[in-house]
């Protein structure tokens, strides 16, 4: 198997008395779709945030492409998230004032791509996720499923190497959820992006190549254990 892209080693993180992570370890390989499963409150989101450099673990290391995230400055981690990662959350991730097209173009513009070019590429991605028709609408005016597909487009528009998805279908019915998952995994496969998918639904996890179970802040990554 080729070298892992993202490695977490023995992560610990507490919020006051709550131990959200108590020894989580994990590997993500390039292009694989990895499901993080576990019951609510088991520490999945916290793990995802640590992996993505959004939060710092109290102890343990996260290596992305061999670099320890803890050694990066805040600005460098921001740049990393902007350029190498993509994010899809459960809801409320689109900027309500911007149109869907502008929302998708946003990461490109943050990476200093010109407006025209950014919006052209954004339009392509909207089409690819079968939501071309909502380009000019504001997020408040589109359905939940459409909104999530816009969010997926936004996560993929920069052609990231890892897409982090935290319960991306959590607020959707099963039909829309499946559609989002189908498009997300297909697009990720096409672009070669790895996906770290947090979910507690087996049917969503079934879109993954591999799963890691999180329980009480500990992972059971069979591969790392081996």
């Amino acid at each position, binding site marked *: 198997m080729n070298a892992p892209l993202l490695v977490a080693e023995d992560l610990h993180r507490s919020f006051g008395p709550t131990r959200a992570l108590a020894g989580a370890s994990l590997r993500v390989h390039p292009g694989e779709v990895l499901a993080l499963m576990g019951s609510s409150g088991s520490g999945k989101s916290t793990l995802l945030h640590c992996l993505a450099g959004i939060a710092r673990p109290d102890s343990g290391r996260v290596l992305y492409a061999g670099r320890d995230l803890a050694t990066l400055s805040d600005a460098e981690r921001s740049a990393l998230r*902007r350029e190498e990662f993509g994010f899809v959350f*459960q809801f409320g991730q689109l900027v309500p*004032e911007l149109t869907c097209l502008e929302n998708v173009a946003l990461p490109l513009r943050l990476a200093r791509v010109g407006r025209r070019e950014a919006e052209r590429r954004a339009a392509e991605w909207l089409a690819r996720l079968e939501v071309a028709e909502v380009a000019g609408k504001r997020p408040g005016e589109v359905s939940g499923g459409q909104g999530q597909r816009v969010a997926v487009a936004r996560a993929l528009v920069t052609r990231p190497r890892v897409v982090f998805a935290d319960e991306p279908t959590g607020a959707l019915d099963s039909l829309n959820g499946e559609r989002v998952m189908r498009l997300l995994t297909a697009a990720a496969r096409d672009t070669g992006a790895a996906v770290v998918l947090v979910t507690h639904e087996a049917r969503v996890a079934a879109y993954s190549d591999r799963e890691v179970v999180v329980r009480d802040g500990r992972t059971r990554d069979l591969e790392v254990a081996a």
Partner: protein
Amino acid sequence: MTPLRDRAADLVMGARMAFTGGRDGWLRAVLTAVGVGVGVAMLLLAAAVPGALDARQARGDARDDLRMGEPIPAAANTLLIRQTDTEFRGQPVRGRVLRPEGPAAPAPPGVAALPRAGEVLVSPALRDLLSSADGALFAPRLGGATVTGVIGAEGLAGPGELAYYLGSDTLTADDATRLAAFGGGLPGEGLGPVLMMLVVVIFVVLLLPIAVFLGAAVRFGGERRDRRLAALRLVGADAAMVRRIAAGEAAAGALLGVAAGGVLFALGRQVVPLVTLMDLSVYAADVRPPLPLVAAVVLAVPALAVVVTLVSMRAVLVEPLGVTRRATPVRRRLVWRLLLPAAGLGLLLAGAAGVAPLGSEQQTAAGAVLLLVGVVTLLPWLTDLLVRRLRGGPVAWQLAVRRLQLDSAASARLVNGVAVAVAGTIGLQMLFAGVAGRFTFDTGQDTSRAQVQVQFPARPDAAVALDRLAAASGVTASIATLTTLVTADGTHGMLRIGDCAALAEFGRLDRCADGDVFLVHDPEDRSADIRPGGTVTVGDGVRWRVPRAAREVPVRTNPSGYRQGGVLVTPGAVDTARLGPLHAEAYLRLAADRPDAVEHVRNAAAGADPLASVLTLTETRQANQFVNVQRGLYVGAVVTLLLIGASMLVGVLEQLRERRRLLAMLVAVGTRRSTLGWSVLWQSAVPVVVGLALAVVFGLGLGAVLLRMVQAPVAVAWPALGISTGLGAAVVLLVTGLSLPVLWRLTRPDGIRTE
């Protein structure tokens, strides 16, 4: 129809909600109370100002000692009084020398028993000054008299006033006024129409932003309230109940604010006597707002809170499943927004044309208020108009503009107060600049040659007095001369005796030695026709022959800015003792690094002769209070702006907190914090720019109309314009700067919790 009792229950429920709801609830209640309280305290203070000034005026009238009319003969019930006002470090000192002429001599208010010779009564402020380390710098002016008592409050204009009554047994009727009673002089001069207008406009300009500020303060926590009300709807409250609950909540918060305002006012009142502003100090007891006005404030503020709340709730739909802003923003109609300022302008212009059915003060106030309110009504409309067309630009700009497009009113509301304050300040300062021009004049005094002029009344030992002055601490040079009047053929001139150096200040001497005499003529003035060898009358009738050797020289403007024709005489050319009593006059140069030098001069002058007059020279003399009032106005504007800034900060923080999840999410996906910072800045900067532009237009308009009303030439006061808009912009920058740390804290990327 809902039974009355149920409605009351809704109100009470709302009122309870104002104070419950955990830490956030308390925080909101406290913020509202402080915000409203500050506004209420300001209103009460403003309401008390006229009363305080009246009380002060009444006390001033009661101790009036300027007797006009026929002199009265000395009697058992008369006293001689002479003004010996002086200054101490720029602060005026009211001084009087008294000499009773009989056992029934009247005592001024605040004085139980008249001081005897060698005794002095002082105001508490002067007593404190005398017993302080600086006392020694003033004491010599009391001629060594011992302080035997204090002047009571009823005899003083204010607690900070410096005043004394010095007893004397040498004062003569020639140097003094004879009084049979104090007070009852001419009634105090009322404010002229110009000053009256200034006062009215000052009130409007300082109070209107406070009212706007109150409008914002009663909306603190509005977002969360809407969400709470939505929860109430979910459990079955209908729309009307929700409105009543909101009204109850707003009224309760405002009442708490009124109470806080009362407390702040009571505290502030106690502080008032400690402050002396523009030589004005006020007794706490004088700061008493009239009861009707107090009642009006107490009722109007909660009413305003309720009205503002209900109006603001029109824009949101509080529904069981949450709060939605009305999707299609209300089309902003221009007509009524223009109506108010147009009406204001009309009232002012009518006033300028002399049509004032409401009474000119009320009309000016109403006109100014309406005109300035125009800034508030036009701001959202104009912001909308501007923002609607904007697109493109960098991400921060795009985020800000899009947000403004969706809800410009929220941002506009935050800058309303600033815009109104700036507009008012511009108008007022323009009026001031225009009016002040009338009261400012070039004195012609040349402070590079001398800074102080001292004059002594005619006295035999005048030369001794001059020497004492020259020896005073901090005096670096003295131009000392003795003067008296000369008359020749019914024309008058000045006979001035001094050494060559001193005389050179009054005539352009070609050469000079002791024994020389010069004749100076002012070509523009018809001065005494004095010829060498001619005979003139000096002083009270001494005949003096002008030496034949006297030379004619051109006149030189003296340091006071006057040119006087006459005779300049060196001491060797005349026997001064023969000329009778001579006035002494000295122009003094003071060491620039000795600010107290002038006080030493005053002491030396008073020591030599209590009736000496000491005058500091200035290049321009602006009717003095104008400078102070103008500065005071800026201070007032700054205080108002800071208050508004505080409310703005609360508003900005509230808006940020509302969006915390989104902000954290944006940071999580790699948005630079600076991008967010800029977008927050743009978001308030755009309405601010619009607001300031409006403020400039309306301020200039207001200023122009006001100037027309006082028939002064309309001129734009550029410095006032710059300073006022600069202050407004600075407040916005300050608020944005202060909100950044909170933005940073809210946008820590781990702030995204999907819950």
